[in-house]
């Protein structure tokens, strides 16, 4: 079956199998920043934005993206670069496998009208697991990116 969706601002018409997950569709489209870390919606590594909201693409049927806008980190290069700079300054990048998903979630958060305190940052990003960094350097870098660095 065919679906239409906006991928990073460009209209795509894609042929998919009915049970196909968005993660697989995107990787087939050579969007390689979207990766799989688990089989159970647990790790957040596959996060993409659907109409600007973070969702786990590994468990989201591609059919349901029909008529919606999908953003991956390839679609927000300036924001990713800004965040990368903050990560670099804080030593917050290690293996990098979790980074594109983190970056998208951080970007989505930045656009929401919420107070960026420790509580909301942790709540917003708790689904983005990272096994390398111990988390706090990431959060420090994120506060810089959000402009709320104490």
């Amino acid at each position: 079956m065919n679906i239409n969706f906006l991928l990073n601002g460009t209209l795509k018409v894609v042929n998919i199998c009915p049970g196909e997950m968005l993660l697989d569709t995107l990787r087939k489209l050579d969007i390689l920043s979207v990766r799989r870390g688990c089989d159970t919606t647990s790790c957040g590594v596959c996060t993409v934005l659907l109409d600007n909201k973070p969702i786990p693409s590994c468990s989201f049927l591609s059919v349901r993206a029909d008529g919606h806008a999908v953003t991956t980190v390839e679609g927000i290069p300036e924001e990713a670069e800004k965040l990368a700079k903050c990560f670099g300054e804080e030593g917050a990048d290690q293996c990098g496998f979790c980074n594109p998903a983190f970056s998208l979630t951080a970007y989505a958060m930045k656009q929401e009208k919420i107070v960026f305190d420790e509580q909301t940052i942790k709540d917003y990003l708790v689904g983005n697991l990272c096994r390398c960094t111990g988390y706090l350097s990431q959060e420090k870098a994120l506060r810089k990116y959000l402009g709320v660095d104490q």
Partner: protein
Amino acid sequence: MLTEDPKSVILGGGLWLRLSFSEVSTLIGLEKLGLDRIEEDDQWIKLGSQVTLRDLQTSTPLQSLAGGILSQASEHIMGIGVRNVATIGGTICGRYGFSDLLTALLALDARLVFFKTEELSLKQYLAKKKPLRDILLSIRIRKTPGAGYFHKISTTALDFAILNLAIARRAGKYKIVVGSRPGIAKCAENAMEYLDQIENPSESDILKATQLALEELTFSTNLKATQEYRQELARVYVERGLKAVIGLEY
């Protein structure tokens, strides 16, 4: 379609379906039905079955309803991605034993509006042996003011509950609900009834009610915890929750 084809399935957020994938012939999407809204009138808050956990978490009317227990319960489920996708309809119709939301919804005495079946309470629905083959359209909750307490005990923030509980005291009526025992959320009816008859419960009334709750609820052992430990958690938190909604210190 649903009634005709036994292998057709309704799609909520689709997350749980994905974990338990079995053979499904047709997935019925409800996107176009406008069931993704939270509405309120003088007496009721109405939640469309496609409302996501994230909506529940951030909804202003829900944050102030009975101490915001429904928002709190949502907040403690997984990460933002899952909460943006998982729906209240999928939660109710999935009837998960570990569910945090069902616990909070029971404490709020939620009522369910189906496509064909007559409106019924969540408690009645959960008491049914089998899930209905029907479409859940919306959930209605009375806006009765009052206090509430929700608590989830889990190993990490992303883990399922070892035990969860919600307590509400609205218009002098109590609800004491314990879930993930690991069985599905249940009300402690005797304890509730006992407290309903007391105007200003004292410390010893609370202890008595806690004792009643422990006697009527069953607990068992699974990978996450033993029966004995669960029971102890329930004892401690029912007592603390009652004190919190009654306004006593613990």
